[in-house]
C-alpha cells in the first residue's frame, strides 16, 4: 500500500474519535450497508466524521488492506475497528454499541 495512503488513513483514524469509512456521504449514502451505519450513529446522537471511499480508489482498497477487512463500511472508534454493517447492527441491537460510546464519553 502506498505510504501516503497509509498515512492518510492513520491520520483520519487517530484524529477522530468516531470515524466511518463509507460509500458516499451521510447525506447521500451510496450503499445500503453504509446508510444503515449512518442511521445507527445518527440515532445514537454520537458525533462522527466520515471518509467517502468512492472519492479515492487508493483509500477504498487501502483501508481493506489496512484493517484486513474486505468490505466497506468500516467503523473506527478511538482508532480501533469496531466492524462492518453486520457487527455494528448486532452491537446496536444488543445495546453494546451505546455502552461503548457511553464508556468513552462520546455521546453528545
Amino acid at each position: 500500500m502506498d505510504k501516503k495512503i497509509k498515512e492518510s488513513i492513520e491520520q483520519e483514524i487517530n484524529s477522530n474519535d468516531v470515524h466511518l469509512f463509507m460509500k458516499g456521504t451521510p447525506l447521500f449514502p451510496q450503499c445500503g450497508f453504509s446508510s444503515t451505519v449512518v442511521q445507527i450513529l445518527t440515532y445514537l446522537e454520537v458525533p462522527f466524521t466520515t471518509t467517502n471511499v468512492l472519492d479515492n480508489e487508493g483509500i477504498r482498497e487501502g483501508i481493506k488492506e489496512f484493517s484486513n477487512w474486505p468490505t466497506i463500511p468500516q467503523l473506527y472508534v478511538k482508532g480501533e475497528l469496531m466492524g462492518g454493517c453486520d457487527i455494528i447492527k448486532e452491537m446496536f441491537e444488543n445495546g453494546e454499541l451505546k455502552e461503548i460510546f457511553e464508556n468513552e464519553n462520546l455521546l453528545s
Partner: protein
Amino acid sequence: MGMTKDELFEVLNNGLSESVIEIQDLAGDNDHYAVKIISNKFRGLSKINQHKLVYDVLGKKMGYTLHALSIKTEVPKE
C-alpha cells in the same frame, strides 16, 4: 460475476468443516446473500474475529466475486 448458492456453500463448508451453514439468497442475482454459521471454530473469538475467519475462508472472493454478504456467526451451545 457472483457465485451460486451451492458454490458459496461449498467454499464455506470446505473452510469451516463441522459447522452449521444456512444461506439465504437475498436478491436472486448470485451476488447478495445472508449466511448464518454456527461453528466451534468461533469459540473464544471476538465477534470481529469470527467474521474475519469467515472472510479469510472466502479469500479474494469477498468484495470482488461476491458483492454483498451479510454474516451472522454463533458458537454452538454446550
